[in-house]
């Protein structure tokens, strides 16, 4: 079962202005290109140089397709698309390319990963309170101290 540590953070609700405490995920580490390459090649027996080339190509091709208006549905993950805004005009004929406010690349989770994120399949525990992570938090604590430890 996936385990995610949470900590408490005080936030202001922008709608009603009230301040309260909310749960937020504790990120143990940021996995970079090397970490991904190492973990993927270890778990899939694919040559690290191939993994590295494919990861670079993945980023390049996603950008290429998005920049040409396409959405890209990556199985198991989700859909990447262009994000933009538009300025208003009084008539349609006034609209030109200048009215587009380019933003960036957007991502929407796919159904498969939404299901994997189901609360029934993920365990949450307080990471910042020793008594609370004592049992279920041991695993995550080792992640924190030892870097990462990919699941088989």
């Amino acid at each position, binding site marked *: 079962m996936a385990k995610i540590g*949470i900590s408490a953070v005080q936030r*202001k609700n922008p709608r009603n202005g009230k301040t*309260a405490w*909310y749960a937020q995920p504790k990120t143990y580490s940021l996995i970079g290109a090397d970490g991904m390459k190492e973990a993927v090649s270890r778990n899939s027996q694919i040559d690290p140089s191939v993994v590295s080339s494919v990861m670079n190509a993945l980023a390049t091709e996603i950008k290429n397709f998005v*920049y040409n208006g396409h959405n*890209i549905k990556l199985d198991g993950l989700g859909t990447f698309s262009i994000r933009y805004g*538009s300025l*208003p005009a009084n008539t349609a004929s006034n609209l030109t390319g200048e009215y587009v406010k380019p933003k960036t690349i957007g991502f929407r989770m796919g159904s498969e990963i939404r299901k994997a994120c189901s609360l029934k399949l993920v365990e949450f525990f*307080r990471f910042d309170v020793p008594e609370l992570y004592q049992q279920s938090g041991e695993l995550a604590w080792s*992640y924190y101290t030892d870097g990462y430890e990919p699941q088989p």
Partner: protein
Amino acid sequence: MNIVKMAPIKRKNPKTGKVAWYLQKRKYDTISSKELVEAMARNTGIPVAKVAMATDAIVKQLKNFLLNGHSVNIVGLGTFSPRIKSRPSDSKDAVTAENVKALLLKFRPQTDIREDMKNTVGYEVIHSEVTGTSPAPVPEDPYLGVTKFGQLHDGSLEVEDVERTQDGTQVEIYRESTFLGIKTDGTQKGGKFCLAILPSDTYPYTYNPKNTIVLKPATGAYKKDFDYVANGVIIPDDAVDVKLLYLPAGVQVTDKPDNFKLASMINILMQ
């Protein structure tokens, strides 16, 4: 220069209520994983099978890291990290796993992408789609007599994903405004079309009136392209499913699952 084709569309700004013309991306083909893999193989010279295997392994590993609380940076694209929707508590110690409403994945694009897009992406406005001089052919839809879908898209008016720090506290605002229009062939009489949204915390998986939006008959500029529309629809981040239902006359949306056996369902591709 990459070119994205845009078409004018008349819309009501949900914030101000003003109606104006905006630009909306034309419908493009969605690139599947298979097409993406083929393109990657072409440009790297690595065999397709190997690229496909590596891509699967990368996605699997990415999921594994994220679901165990790590953030992952894909160089050249951006960073994925877990994100939580939480219920509020009065005190710090009262925050437990029970506060978690939904687990989501957040994608933060690399900062240079915005600048890159400004320099490398151009926008071409197709005005003919408004004047109607060359209407696009309407594909036959096998379902229910619905012959045309409007895009259910990230509304250009406006998707906000703002984070700011105030006195050490972080505030996140996320808001999506969407539009859905459908055109029917007129075979459906006396019933109504609804957009049913299924939040992830719903169990068992049943739809209910609270999360169902009835499409209204199209009026004004929308009438030209659509028969029924829903405007300013808010689809929560954690929605696991969105369906278009046709409810025959006399059938009401209730929280009884059996009720939906009576309704015909159409899956909607959320862009």
